[in-house]
């Protein structure tokens, strides 16, 4: 057997590699085909999706900042009354169909204000888009969690009703409800 690995290649493709230019229009053409064949979701383009995710996060942050100025005990999940705390994780992916951002801002703010007026909001913050996963994850959350709320409710039924009232669901967003363990004794 000839040992081809030992021989120098007679042709250098270095210049070709350096001068090669990927046609810029190819990416758009492929994406358009993939959308036509429904291999890529077309419900919302990703730019809009990330704009909206950022806007939703902004609403949460703005509201949380407002709670501090109003003197609420925002940010703390340790509560003194008998009610339980629940974590609401807001998720959305490219199928989220709320596109009117100013209207969304109003609607989400109104929901948060109502919750605060009823003294049912403990805290809310925007999460960054970085995800660090550790260990064995049975169903990885992946990207798409834009923020969280911590609310107070008398029981799970009330917490579920609160989640059902959140406008995020109307636009095909998702909310994960997680009761917070009070760690009593």
């Amino acid at each position: 057997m000839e040992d081809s690995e030992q021989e120098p290649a007679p042709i250098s493709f270095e210049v070709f590699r350096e001068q090669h230019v990927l046609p810029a229009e190819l990416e758009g053409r492929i994406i358009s085909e993939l959308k036509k064949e429904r291999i890529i979701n077309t419900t919302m383009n990703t730019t809009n999706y990330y704009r909206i995710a950022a806007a939703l996060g902004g609403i949460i942050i703005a509201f949380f900042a407002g709670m501090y100025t109003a003197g609420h005990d925002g940010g703390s999940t340790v509560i003194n009354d008998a009610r339980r705390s629940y974590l609401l994780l807001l998720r959305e992916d490219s199928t989220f169909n709320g596109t009117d951002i100013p209207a969304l801002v109003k609607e989400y703010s109104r929901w948060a204000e109502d919750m605060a007026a009823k003294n049912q909001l403990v805290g809310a913050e925007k999460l960054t888009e970085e995800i660090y996963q550790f260990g064995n994850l049975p169903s990885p959350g992946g990207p798409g969690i834009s923020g969280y709320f911590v609310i107070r409710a008398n029981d799970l039924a009330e917490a579920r009703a609160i989640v059902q009232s959140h406008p995020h669901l109307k636009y095909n967003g998702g909310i994960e409800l997680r009761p917070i363990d009070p760690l009593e004794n």
Partner: protein
Amino acid sequence: MHQEPEGIPDQELIDGFLRHRSEREFRLLYRRYAARIHRMALHLVNYDGPAADEAAQETWITAMKKLETYRGGSTFKTWLTGILINKVREHRRAGLRRPAHALDPELGQPAYGYPGIGVDLQRSLAGLSEGYHQVLVLHDAEGYTHEEIAALLGISEGTSKSQLFHARQQVRKFFNA
């Protein structure tokens, strides 16, 4: 995402795309391998720009359709290249494009020019049989190992080495003539 695409493993991008089917996740995968696939397409269609664009486009569309079947047995790069090679073969069978080895080096001028590929170099490659040509560009131009080439072309590693030896010898002969 703020993370650089380079930092995310292929499998994570693939799983993300399969979960969300989003344009953004496709773009991350595409941008990682698009240049390599397009370059490889150019080699395989004798530097015919429009034919390479078409082969690359079909490769990506087929790959995304079949993505669920990718099991990670080979690298994603090799898997994509396998699809590309099949696309080029399909085109040849259908007579859509002139195969590189069918160009007569005696014609003097190749049908297509491409930046960075001189006329002589293109002629020397056009004179190779399809098998020699594929092994030579996969190995010498794109850096695939004989093990990868064997898997891609359905030949043994020994055949890959032997074909590379003969392909190089033929190219040398062309330049020394």
